[in-house]
């Protein structure tokens, strides 16, 4: 599959963040440093393009931690391919974010 020309730097950052294990909106925001007004719409678009899919966190876990359950995003197969190709094209990008260690 040819690289999607619509995949912007923002999209690339988000895909990278996801591949590093940063799985929900705020986490992605923190690690990329992009504003929330950019992150969330971009996630919707990536999801619509089927590069990203989302699922809800297990109820039990959220309740244990005493917070609303989170919506977790992860890369689809196409998403992973897109990310690989984009990384090959944008050499400078490199690995920007640290792997998530907490969860």
């Amino acid at each position: 599959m040819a690289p999607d020309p619509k995949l912007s730097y923002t999209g690339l950052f988000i895909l990278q963040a996801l591949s590093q294990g940063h799985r929900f909106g705020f986490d992605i925001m923190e690690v990329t440093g992009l504003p929330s007004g950019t992150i969330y719409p971009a996630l919707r678009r990536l999801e619509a393009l089927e590069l990203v899919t989302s699922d809800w966190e297990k109820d039990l876990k959220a309740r244990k931690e005493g917070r609303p359950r989170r919506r977790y995003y992860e890369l689809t197969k196409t998403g992973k391919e897109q990310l690989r190709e984009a990384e090959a094209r944008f050499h400078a990008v490199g690995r920007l974010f640290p792997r998530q260690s907490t969860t």
Partner: protein
Amino acid sequence: MGPLLRLISLVVPRAMRPRWLEEWRAELPHGRRRMILGALPDAWALRKLDGVPPEGGRQRSHPFHALDQDVRYALRTFATGKSFTLAVIGSLAIGIGATTAAFALVNAAFFRPFVGVEDQDRLVQVKIGDGGVWYPATWDEYERLRSDLTTLELAASYATDLAVSPGDGEPAEHAGGAVVSGNYFNVLGTRPAHGRFFAPDEDATPWARPAAVISHRLWQRQFASDPDVTGRTIIVNGSVLSIVGVAPEGFINLPMGADVDVWVTFAVSDLVFRDRAGRPTDVRRAGPLRIDFVGRLLPPVELEQAAAHAAVAGEGLIAARGTRSRKGTSVRVEPLADKDAATYAFLAVAAMAVPLIVLAIACVNAASLLLARATRRSADWLVRLALGASRWRLVRQLLVESLLLALGGAALGIVLCYWMIGLWSSQAVLVTPSLAVLVDVKVMLFTLAAAGATAIVFGLGPALSVTRAAISRAPEAGRFMRGPFGSRTRAALVTLQAALCLGLLATGAQFTSTLQKSLADDNLQDPASLLSASLDVEALSFTEEETRIFYETLLERVASLPGVDSAALTGPGDAYLMGGVESLRVWRAWEGSDVDRSEASLLAGGDFFESMRIPLLRGRSFSADDRKGPPRVVVVNQAFADSLSTGDPVGQMLRIAPRDGDYVSAADVVVIGVVPSPVFSRGHTIPIVYVPSPLAPAPARNLLVRFAGEASGSVAAVKSALAAVDNRVPLEQIATGDQLRRQRNASEIDVANRVSILGMLALILAAAGLYGVVSYMVTLREKEIGIRIALGAAGGSVLRLIVRQSIVPVLVGCALGAAGAVAAGALIRSRLYGVSPVDPVAFGGATLLLLLTMLIASLIPARHASRVDPITVLRQE
């Protein structure tokens, strides 16, 4: 922050909103201030992306999503409740059928474009007049108009009666005819069904190529649809013309819209036109004639331009007419279909009113059945609501069901419509166009629209009320019906039906009884043994003497036929006196030559008084001598005798002349007898002078034959007597006295029949409605009835309970309907002569019929209720 988030969430498509809120509630605690800034762009992005499944292929909710499910579900429920389905579809079919039939008639009468006419909007009528009065025009004026009006192509048509026979020796019959200009069919843009139409110059040289075009109708009737008809000939007014073409089926002569069977050109105009002395003459010398002009606007001229141009271009023509027209007269160009919208709308509404009432009853019926059934299914609704169905979804389900029922009703309604039109046209004496012509695409579309509207009318109410009940009174909905009749709505529906039904029945009964009275209320004695027929020798161009001999011989022959008591000849028209009446100038001897009055006169040739069974009050009747030559004696009726102020009317001298005669040429006559005055339907009498022979040449007469027995079987004998005298003369409008009566009252008979038929249909509807409602009530109250029986109620008392409760709304409806019918009767009393607003017999009969029917309708389900087995019912709990 919560309220702000909820506000923003309104931007998110509704289906995704809960999930979106949940996600954001989870995200926000991490970094409040900065985070909320992202919510609005996010919400907006979702809105933009609407239509893309946000999560695992979830379908977005469209108002008509999964409609096929509803349809399948509806069809399944119809299959399980067959009696319900049949009752609703039957009800609706009657309503929709009646409305469609009425619309088909209205459509045919008012809204149908002319058949076979091309680009009808560009056709115009050209008239010489001042807006109110139209003047006859001469042929020269037509030719002048043709050359002066450069904005349009002008054609002329003169409608007239013709005597037509398909071949030598075959009896002639009268047919509508038209003398047209050669370009007539070209201007209308009509294509012949067979052969050709006239060439534009075919009217130029008299008798160069004597040709005729015949109607599709005549082609079928007299030429047996012969495909080679164009080689054959037709005898028109005694002359042989060759048939060149056949007009398309359903074509009517424009601009006046007459039914025409034979068209000829002005080249043979002397077949039709007569000069002042009654001799055949060419149209060019016939003087002013009632010629109709029809024109086609030449592109790109529009109507307004053409009208403006004609007003100016016609000035020369108007000036040349001189005093033959009033001031303000001009040449006018008007659209062909000059439809006065308001009048047509009123007539259409009037014709549609009664069928629409029936449709209303059908809707009420269907609504009541649907309501009862929907209430019964409220447990269903509750489950569906609990599973997350929206109220719209439930309403939609019910609407789909009602729409399907309405479509079924419409399909059956079309069948019924054909049947009803057939019924009307067989009962009505009026001529009704054939069915094939009546039902067209427009009518079908109307039926569909009616079905759709009906579905919403009868479906929406129950749908809304039931779903409302299911939502608000969720736990107890559908368990027990409250009150004696379940709900006020249902009682109101039955009341309304009974009221509408009684209103129709009583009005119909009143119409019918009025009609019976007015039918017998005429001056025709023993109508069954009287035969009337009209004759006209005008087409044969007889001299006055030949005419007299023809009629004398005919009278002799007919009078000597076996079974004939007497025979008479009177003026043209039916035997109802007024038909053959002509006006006459009468001078009284003592008033001198200055004072004359216009009086009614009637030709009483042959044994008129004997044939009409009019007794002589005084003096004597006409003798054979009186009938020879111009009248010297007259018989007057009592009303006329009363107007002669002095002494004995018999023996008085009068001076009489035809309407256009004067004192000098008038004839002195002696009154020799007095007969009773005929009483006309509104109680009036008119003075009549009976003359033994015509005052002026009268080629048309009416033959009256009084038989010893029934007249209906003796038509052939009279016809053969005529053929023996002269077989070129057609015998027209042959009718017995009974038939004359019906023809004369055709429109009243028609109305009475329609109202009665609709009343009977309404009765069937109302009975079916009550039956349905009571059955449902019984089913819904089965448990209660079971308990009653378990507690010791006897079957009979349950029966009485149900019948009593179901008949109460009927009684209320009867009272309302009676009041309505009285009001309607008072309104139409101006048109119903001789009937009091309340006809006790008609009302009593209608009420009794309604009550009996309703009693039976409620008794059947009530019997079912009285046989409820308490154990079976209570076990279901």
